[in-house]
C-alpha cells in the first residue's frame, strides 16, 4: 500500500477523489489491482495501456457478458482496441461504484448496450443484447420468433416517440423508474 500511495502522488489522489465517486481507499485499491496487471517492464512507464485481454482476466469482469463492451466504452484508446489506462480504469470503477448517480450509470449503460456505437438502440443492438443476456449456449437461446416478439414488446414499451429505436433519453426514462437498476449496475473491486 505504501508504495502505491507514493506512486500516485497526493495531489493526483485528491484530484481523483474529486473527479470520481470513489473514496481514497478504493482508488488506492484500484491502483494496486491495476499495477498487478502490468508486466515488469511496463511498470516503469507512466500512462501505460493495458490491453483488453488482460483487463478481462479480472475476476470481477470475467463472467460478465458485457465485458468487452465495457472495455470499449471506457477505453480512450485511438485504436479502438478496448485497452485501458489507469484513468480509464478509474472512470469505469467510478461509474460502477455504489455512490454514482443514476444519470451517469444510465449514460454508460446505454453506451454499453449500444453495440454499434451509433447513439441509439435499434433492433440489431437489442438482439445482441438479448443474446448476451441469455448466454452462449444453444439451449438457453431464444428462438427467432421469441426474439422478434420480445423486441417488438420492448419497443412498444420504451420507444416513446415511435421511431423504431430507443434513444438515450427514452432509455434513461425507462431506467430511472426501474427499482433495481442502481443496485445491480455495480462492480466493486
Amino acid at each position, binding site marked *: 500500500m505504501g508504495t502505491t500511495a507514493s506512486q500516485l502522488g497526493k495531489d493526483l489522489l485528491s484530484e481523483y477523489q474529486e473527479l470520481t465517486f470513489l473514496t481514497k481507499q478504493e482508488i488506492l485499491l484500484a491502483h494496486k489491482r491495476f499495477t498487478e496487471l502490468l508486466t515488469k517492464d511496463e511498470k516503469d512507464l507512466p500512462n501505460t495501456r493495458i490491453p483488453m485481454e488482460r483487463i478481462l482476466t479480472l475476476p470481477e469482469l470475467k463472467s*460478465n457478458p458485457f465485458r468487452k463492451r465495457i472495455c470499449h466504452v471506457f477505453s480512450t484508446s485511438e485504436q479502438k482496441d478496448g485497452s485501458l489506462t489507469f484513468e480509464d480504469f478509474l*472512470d469505469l470503477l467510478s461509474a460502477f461504484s455504489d455512490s454514482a448517480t443514476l444519470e451517469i450509470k444510465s449514460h454508460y449503460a446505454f453506451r454499453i448496450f449500444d453495440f454499434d456505437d451509433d447513439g441509439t438502440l435499434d433492433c440489431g443492438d437489442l438482439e445482441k443484447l438479448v443474446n448476451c443476456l441469455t448466454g452462449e449456449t444453444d439451449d*438457453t437461446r431464444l428462438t427467432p420468433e421469441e426474439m422478434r416478439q420480445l423486441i417488438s414488446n420492448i419497443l412498444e414499451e420504451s420507444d416513446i416517440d415511435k421511431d423504431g429505436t430507443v434513444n438515450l*433519453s427514452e432509455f434513461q426514462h425507462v431506467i430511472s423508474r426501474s427499482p433495481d437498476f442502481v443496485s445491480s449496475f455495480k462492480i466493486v473491486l
Partner: protein
Amino acid sequence: MQVRPEKRERGKRRRVKNDQEAEGRERDEEEQTKIKSGKTTKTRKNEKSRKTEKEEGEGESEERNTKGKKKHGSAKKEEKEEDGGKRTVKEKAQDVKKKKHKKVVETSSEQETSEDNSEDNEEEDNEEKEVRPESLSPEELEKLKEAVDERKKLIQGLRGKPWPMKKKLVTLRESQEFVEKYEGALGKGKGRKLYAYKVMMTKKWMKFQRDFENFKTACIPWEMKIKEIESHFGSSVASYFIFLRWMYGINMILFGLTFGLVMVPEALMGRPYGSIPRKTVPRAEEASAMDFAVLWDWGGYAQYSVLFYGYYNSQRAIGWLKFRMPLSYFLVGVGTVAYSYMVVIRTMARNANESGVGDDNSFNFSWKMFTSWDYLIGNPETADNKFASITTSFKEAILEEQESRKDDNIHLTRFLRVLANFLVLCCLAGSGYLIYFVVRRSQKFALDGLENHTWWERNEVNMVMSLLGMFCPMLFDVISTLENYHPRVALQWQLGRIFALFLGNLYTFIIALMDEINLKREEEKIIKFNITMWEASLYNRTVLENSTAPPITIHPADVPRGPCWETMVGQEFVRLIISDTMTTYITLLIGDFLRAVLVRFLNYCWCWDLEAGFPSYSEFDVSGNVLGLIFNQGMIWMGAFYAPCLPALNVLRLHVSMYLQCWAVMCCNVPQERVFKASGSNNFYMAMLLVILFLSTLPAIYTIVTIPPSFDCGPFSGKKRMFDVIHETLESDFPAWFSKVFSYASNPGLVLPFILLMVLAIYYLQSTSKSYKEANVELKKKLQTQNEENKKKNKRAALKAQMDLEEARKAASQAAEQQNNNASLQEEENGEENHGSNQRLYHSKNGRNPPPAAGDQERQPPATRAPVPRTYHHGNHGAPGYLPGFSRQSEPRMYRVPSLQRH
C-alpha cells in the same frame, strides 16, 4: 468513433477562419481603445465569448459521436454564429460571467485542436486579471463572485459528467486555477477579508468532509466478506448479509444506550450486591445459585444481577453524580423503541425514494432487458444460473403476453388452492394450540418446582417454538406445490404464511405469559400480606423481648420477597432468544454443513449422483433467514425493557451469525437456481420489520401502562404505575411552572386537536402524492398522443409533398417526352425511383421525422438501388433528375436525430 478526427479537422478549419476574422476585429478595437482599458476589456471578452460559444457547440457535437447528430450539431453552430453576429451589435454586458464559465468547458474540450488560439486567450486573460481588482466596480465584482461560484459548482458537478478522465482533469485544474486567482483578487479589498476567510473555511470544511467520508467507509465492517458473497451468489444473497449488518448497527446503538445509561451506572454507583433483599440470592436458592444448569436457565446469580429488571433499586438518585436511575431506566426503554421506529421509517422512506414508483408495470419487458443482469456476479456458475433464469423470465413473459391468462382447468386449481389454504390454516391453529398447551403445562411445572422435572420438561416451551419454526415452513413449502402459483406469487404466499406462523407463535407465547403474570400478581398479593404479618411479628417480638435492644438486623437473603413478574418476563425472553439462536446454528450445521459433507463424500460410493440428484447441496434461503432475523429483533424489542442484557446478547448473536453464515454460505451452499431480485424486496422486509416492531411494542407498552410494578423489585417499586417516574421528576426536579405547562399540554383538549391535525396532514400528503401520480400518467399519455399526432402530420405532409413532386415530375416528363419520344420506357421505372427518393428528401428536410416502419426500410433500398444507372442518365436530361442521387449516405443519419431532446 471514426468520425471524430476528420470532424475535428473540419471544425478546426472553420474555427480558424472565424478566429482570424474575430482577431482582426479585435486588433482594430484594441488599437482604438488602448487608453480606456476598463471598458474595452468587456468588449474584448464579448468577442472571445462568442468564439467560445461557437466552439462549445462544436464540443457538444463532438460529445455525441453519432453520425446523425453531426449535421444537427453543425446546424446549431451556424445558429450560434448568427447569434454571435447579432451580439457584436448589441454588446450585452451582463453576459460576461456566463461566457467566462463557458470558456472553461471549451478550452478543455478542444485543447489539442486550437492550442495556439487558447494560448492567446490565456495571455489576454492574464492581462485582464492583473488590471481587474483595482479597476472593477462593486457591481462587476459581484458578477465575478458569481462566476467564481459557478466554477465551483462546475467543479462539484464534474464527477457526475460522463467524460473521460483526461478531460475532467484538465477542466478541474483550469477551473481550480481560475477560482484561486479570482478569489485572491477578490480577497484584496477591505471588506473582502471575510470573504477570503469564508472561502478558506469552506475549502477546509470540504476537505474535512471528504476525509470524514473516507473514514466512515473505512469503518463499515465486513465489506470484503459481503463483496465476496456478492460475486458468488449475486445481490439477493448479499442483501441478506447487508440487512444483517444493518441490524447489527441498530443493535449496537440499542446496546450502547442500555449498557451506558442503565447497566453501567447501576453496577458502578448503585448499592452493591447483597446490600438489600432484591440484590441478594434468597436463602433457599443459595445452595444451587452457582450451578451451571441454573445459570444456563438464567436463574441464581444471573437472575440477581444487572442483567434483569428486578435487581435495580428504586432509589431516586444514585452515586456522587446523583444519577436519576429510575428515570434513566424508563427513558432508555422508551428511547430504544422510539429510535427503532425512527430508523426503520427513515430507511423505508429512503428506499421508497430510490425505487420510485415500485409497482409500475409499464416497463416490464424493458426492465427485464436492461436491468436484469447483476454486474456483481463474478462466479461463472452463478453467471450460468443467471443466464438460465433470465432466459426463463423472458420466455415466461412472452408466454404470459401471448396467452394472457388462459386457464385450462380453473375448477381444479381453485379447489386445490382452497384446500392448500385450509391445510395451512390447520397447521397454524395446531401450532398455536401446541404452544399454548406447552406454556400452560410449563406453568404447572413451575408451580411444582423446576427441580423435579427433566431437562426436556423445563425447556419444552422454547424447544417446541423453535421446532415449529423449523418444520412448519417446510410443510408450507410442500403444501404450496398444490397451488400451482407463479413462483413470485408463491414466494409471497410462503413469506406471508411463515410470517403468520411466527406471529401466531409469538402472540400465543405472549398471551400465555400474560396469564402467568396475572398468576404471579395473585401470588404477590398473598406474599405482600404475609410479609406485613411477618414484619409485624418481628416487630412484636423485639418489643416483647427487650425494648431497649437495637433493632435486629436480618440478613437480606432471609427476607421474604414477592415473585417479581418483570424479572420472570425478562428471563423468558432471554431463554427464548438463546434457544432460538441455538436452533439456528444447529440447523445451519446439520442442514447445510453435514449435508454438504455427506453429499460430497458419499457421492463416491452411492448408487445415484448425490450432487445432481435428490439431496444435492442446499441453497441459501434468503427469505427464511430474513424472517428469522426480523422475528428475533421483535423479541428483543419486546423483552429489552425487562432484561437490559438482551441487546448485548443480540449483538453477540448477530456478530457470531455474521461469521458463521458467511462461512456456511461460502463453503456449503450452491447459488440459487432462481436468482430473484434483492432490491425489490428490500422495502418488503422493512415493512415486515415495521409491523413486527409495532406488534412487539404493543404488549410491552401495555404491560408498562396497565400493570402496576412489583412492590419489592425493580426501579419502579413502590409506585402505582411505571410512568409515574415522569411525574415525580417533573414535580421535584423542574420548576413549578414547567410541570404546569406540561399538565396543560397533556390535557386531552390539546392532544386531541393535535392528533387530528396530524391525521389531516397525513391525508393531505397522501392525496397530493396521489394526484402527482395521476399527473404523471396523464403527461405520459399526452406525450404519446402528441407523438402519434406528429407522426400523422408528418405522414400527411410527406404525402402532399410527394404529390406535388409527382405532378412536377409528370410535367417535366411530358416535356421530356416531347423532346425525346424514345425515352418512354425508362420513364416508368423512374417514376418508382422518384417515389422513393422524394420521401427521403422529405426526411432529410425534417430531421425529427420518424422513419417508415422497419419493414419499409428493408424493402426500399433494393427497389431503389437497382435502377440507379439508368435514372442517373435520365436525370441528366430530365428536370427532377437531381433527386435520385440525393444524399443517399445521409439517409440513415437523419432517422436518428433524437426527437425527445428537442421537444
